[in-house]
Structure formats: structure tokens, C-alpha cells
């Protein structure tokens, strides 16, 4: 009976078996990395806004406190996007004819809000409350990054569950004294672990890794 396959079939079969295994591994790795990448997480991508608001100018150069605009961060789950009135507290007197600020003036006159593009967003199935984090010593820049360097605002972290768990499992790595929460230039001290453990006890940080803390 004549052979059905050429002798090269031996090589082809070995190559394809190992090749398939390697391709599956490479594909899995690639898919995982894509899922971690800014394409999916929107990390480090400045978002275009109707008005090119610069946190670097307002928060770092002018020294305006975060709470001046994000005024409900200490009392509410939502930190609050400022209303046009807040912008006009200064811009009714400064840069009053600037073309960059025209949408702000139009909004003030017509009463229609500015449609800001949301930069930091969690999915609806994850419950997040700003006020408890701020009250327990988590600083703004811990999660929102070096906001004082951002001319246009971007999401500084991946905001994936694994990132949240990184702190929720070990809050002593990230907690800071309450009076430093709104300091955008704060750097963790060399004794962060010792300080952190002390603050976790002092601020009574608890119940962080139960599923229903965030998935209510």
C-alpha cells in the first residue's frame, strides 16, 4: 500500500503541535497585556474637554485647594464637578474676554451646564464613596496621581479591581495623616510602613476586603 503522506509530514506534525501550544500561550499573554493597556483602561490618556482646563495652572501654580471646586468630597460619595458659578467666581474678573473661556461665559449666560468629559469612572457594579476615603487618610494624589503636573487631565491609574485591592489589602502602604490629604505635593515618608500601621490603628481602617464593601 503506498504511503499517504510525504516524509515531511513528520516535521509538519511536530511543528504544528508545538506551534499550537506556543501560539495559545502567546495569544493569552497578548490578550492579558491588551487588557492591562491604556487602550482598555484609559490610563494616562488625556481626555479632550470643551474647555482646556489645566489642573497644573489652577491647583499647582495658583495653589487653589482641591475642595474649592470638588466641594462635596468630604461629605458625599461623589467628589463633585464644579458648577459654572464656581468658575465665574474668578473668571468674571480675570480673563473676562479670553476666547478659551467662551464656553464658560456662554454656560453662565444660558444656564446650560458645560459637558465635561468624565476622566475617572468606575463601572456601575462597583460602589465607591469619596468621603470615607478622604476621612480615613487617603490623599487625592494617591489615586488621582500627580494632578499638579497635568495640563489636561488624565486617569493616572488603571482603576482595575486589582489596583483597588492593592490598597484595600494593605492600607498601611498608602495612608497619610489627615491634614496631608489635600496636599498635592505630598511624598510618602521613608518610614511609611511604620507610620501607615500606626495610622491604620488610629483611624480605625477596617472591613476593606469583604465583597459587599464595594459590590452592594
Amino acid at each position, binding site marked *: *500500500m503506498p504511503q499517504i503522506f510525504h516524509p515531511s509530514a513528520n516535521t509538519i506534525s511536530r511543528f504544528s503541535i508545538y506551534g499550537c501550544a506556543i501560539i495559545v500561550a502567546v495569544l493569552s499573554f497578548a490578550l492579558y497585556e491588551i487588557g*492591562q493597556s491604556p487602550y482598555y483602561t484609559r490610563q494616562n490618556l488625556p481626555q479632550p474637554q470643551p474647555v482646556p482646563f489645566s489642573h497644573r495652572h489652577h491647583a499647582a501654580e495658583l495653589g487653589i485647594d482641591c475642595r474649592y471646586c470638588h466641594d462635596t468630597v468630604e461629605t458625599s460619595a461623589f467628589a463633585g464637578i464644579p458648577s459654572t458659578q464656581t468658575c465665574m467666581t474668578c473668571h468674571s474678573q480675570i480673563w473676562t474676554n479670553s476666547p478659551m473661556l467662551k464656553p464658560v461665559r456662554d454656560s453662565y449666560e444660558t444656564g446650560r451646564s458645560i459637558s465635561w468629559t468624565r476622566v475617572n469612572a468606575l463601572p456601575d457594579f462597583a460602589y465607591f464613596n469619596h468621603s470615607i476615603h478622604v476621612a480615613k487618610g487617603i490623599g487625592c494624589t494617591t489615586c488621582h496621581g500627580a494632578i499638579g503636573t497635568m495640563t489636561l487631565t488624565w486617569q493616572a491609574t*488603571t482603576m482595575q*479591581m*486589582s489596583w483597588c*485591592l*492593592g490598597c484595600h489589602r494593605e492600607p498601611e502602604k498608602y495612608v497619610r495623616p489627615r491634614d496631608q490629604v489635600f496636599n498635592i505635593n505630598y511624598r510618602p515618608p521613608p518610614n511609611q510602613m511604620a507610620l501607615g500601621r500606626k495610622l491604620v490603628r488610629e483611624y480605625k481602617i477596617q472591613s476593606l476586603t469583604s465583597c459587599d464593601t464595594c459590590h452592594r
Partner: protein
Amino acid sequence: MTPEGVQKIAEADSPIPPLPPGSTYATVSDTISSIVLGQRRRPGWFIGFAFSFLLVLLLFASISYLFVKGVGIWGVNIPIAWGFAIVNFVWWIGIGHAGTLISAILLLLHQRWRTSINRFAEAMTLFAVSCAALFPVLHLGRPWLFYWLFPYYPNYMKVWPQFRSPLVWDVFAVSTYATVSLLFWYVGLIPDLATLRDRAKSRTKQIIYGIMAMGWRGSAIHWSRYEIASLLLAGLATPLVISVHTIVSYDFTIAILPGWHSTIFPPYFVAGAVYSGFAMVLTLAIPLRKFYHLEEFITPKHLENCAKVMLATGMIVAYGYVMETFMAFYSGNVFDKYMILNRMFGPYWWVYSAVILCNVLLPQALWSRRVRRNIYGLFALSLIINIGMWLERFMIVVVSLSRDFTPSAWGMYMPTRWDWAILAGSFGLFASLFYLFIRYLPAISIFEMRHELAEEKKEI
């Protein structure tokens, strides 16, 4: 008691009929492989396959609509949060167990009557497990996240699945079962695929069967490796027959619901699985042997042995029913007592009656040798038992959920047309896969039949 002694007792009343006189290795191979290689094509196959494929299309349509609209299109609601999807899952997985029992356990017990039925029974297992595996994915609220059930690491959430949950154990049980069954079936197929490769007339068939046969030469080394692999896989598959449906039963026993929280479930489910599985084997074997003229291989004695296993497991299932009822009253627990009374006399009393009729009363006819030897009787009983076992799963899942502890939480289950559509579609999937199997792969193990012939010749 040696295996040979067991064998002799099994054959005492009437041994397995030998193959017809004049059978040779060539005629055995011819009869079985000609179904595949085209000389004995049947128009009925095409009609059957076309009808099954229509049901498969219905299945795809229903699944698409389900993914778009969500599980609300089904009749599930509070309190009956598990409906047809879980009933179908348990039923299909149960059916698969008979194939593995025939392939693995009967192999290790040296039961020769398994030879002609084990190939298509194992195929039946694989297709049943495929149908079953759909349902846990479909019944998820976000089915596209089904892969979260597998403990893959690293993941973006840095959490493991809930290892304390039987729903996660199911993932391991069913995927192990599917893998081992597939391997066992495929390894067993290799010598037959080589037979088909060697007998194929067209170049395409030669290449396809040749690739699938993986270079099998039939040399002594190959056969030696085959025997070892086969025994190892049989050894791996044997505990799965017991463990897989035990794990599936834990889906229910872990809950505190009356009617579910029962320690009899693991053996009762496994027996029920083998019961419905053998019923499905008969439902498939009887038309197969008739339409493809395989009566010389699948003899009435084979069918009778299947019927005996059915009867035995049916008695275990009946014992399970009796014990549940007894324990409900013996426990003195008001909720368990009510659960049994509700099953028998509540709004679903007709399900209970049908279950007792189909699973306990009618199969008692199998005590009679005349019924066990009657092909039409066996076929009818196999259908009745399959329906009865589906209703029993319905009874366990739905009736227990419909009335639990507080009367304010009671409710009824109304299956919607999509529930029925997916059930019918799963039948279509099973049937289509089976039709394709009959058409393209040898439905009976060719080399094992040749081995049978050799054994018979030695005895003469």
C-alpha cells in the same frame, strides 16, 4: 471471585451470542466501516440530520436572543431562580455517565458485552456533556464573563473564584469529565481511524483519516502502548462516573432548602445518572442496530444486559424516593414534612405522579425476561425512563424552590417559549452530533470486534 469467575456467572443463563459463522476479520471490518466509507448510505440519515440541524438553528437563535435580552426571557424569577437551564444541565450530564461506565468500568471488570456498545455510548457521553456544558454558561447573567469561573492567574481582579462553592467545583468536575472522556474516546478511535485510512478510496478521506489516525501502524509497540493508555484512561475515568454527578448533586445539597439539603443525593444522583444514561444508550442502540443492520454485533443479549443495569439503578433510585419520604417524616422537621406533602399533593402533584410512574412503576416490567428481550418494549421503556428522569430533575429543582420556608415566599414556575426552545435545541444539538458521528466515524469499535472474533475462535 476472579474476573473470569464473574464473567462465567454473567454468561450462565445465556452467553453473548457469537458472531455469525463465516465471520472473518475482513467481514467484521467491512460491515462497520462501510457505513462510514459510503457503500451503505441511507436517505433516512439525511432527513434525520436535516431535522436535527433545524433544531440546532433554533438553539442558536434562542441563544442569540438570550445574550441580547438576558435571562429575563426565561421563566426564572424569585423564588424559582433555577429553572429549565439547571434541570437540563443535570439531566444531560447524568446521561453522559452511562457511556463512561460502559467504556471504563466494564472494561476494568472484563465484561465482554461492552464491546459492541462502548464506542457509540462514549460518543453519546461526549455529546451529552457538550449539551450540558452549555447551560451553566447560558444561565449566567453576563455569560461573556464565563471564563471567570476558571481559576486563571493573573487576572485583573486579583481574586480567585469562590472555592467553597459547588458551582465552582462543577467547573472542575465537568471540565475534567469532558477532557478525560474526549481523550479516552479518541485514543480508542485511533486504531479504527487507521482502518478507515487504509480502506478509504478517495484521497480526501485518506488524508483526513490519516491525520486523525496519527500515524498508527498497528505494530506490536503501538498496540502495547495503546493497551497501557487505555487502561490508564479507564482508571482515570472510573472514579469520574461516581464523582462528577456527586459534585453536581452538591449544587443542591449545600443549600439549606428542604428537598435539597439531603445526604442521600450523591448516591441517588449517581444511580439516577446511570439509569437515564442506559436508557439513552438503549434509545440510541435500538434504532442504530435496526437501520444499519448491526444486529449481529448489538444482540438482544446486549440490550438485555443494558436493561438489567437499568433495572438495578432504577431500584436504587426508587430506594432514594422511599428514603426521602421516610426521612422527611422521621426527622420530625415541619419543613421537610411539608416538602414531601407538597411534592405529592401540591400544585405540582402531577410531576410527582409522572416521576413515580415512569421511573418506578413502569420499569418494573423489566423483571420479566420477555420484556427484556422485546426490542419495542425496551425502546418504549427507555423513552419513558428518559422523560421520567427529566421530570425528576424538574421536581427536585423547581418544586423544592416553589415552596420553601415562608409561605409569603412561595411561587410558581412558568416556562416560557424560550425555555422550551433551548431544550428542543439541545436535543437537536445532541442528535446532530450523533448523526455526524454515525456518518463519519465507526459506530462500533472495529478492532475490539475483531478481538472478540479472535477470542471466539480460540474458544472453539
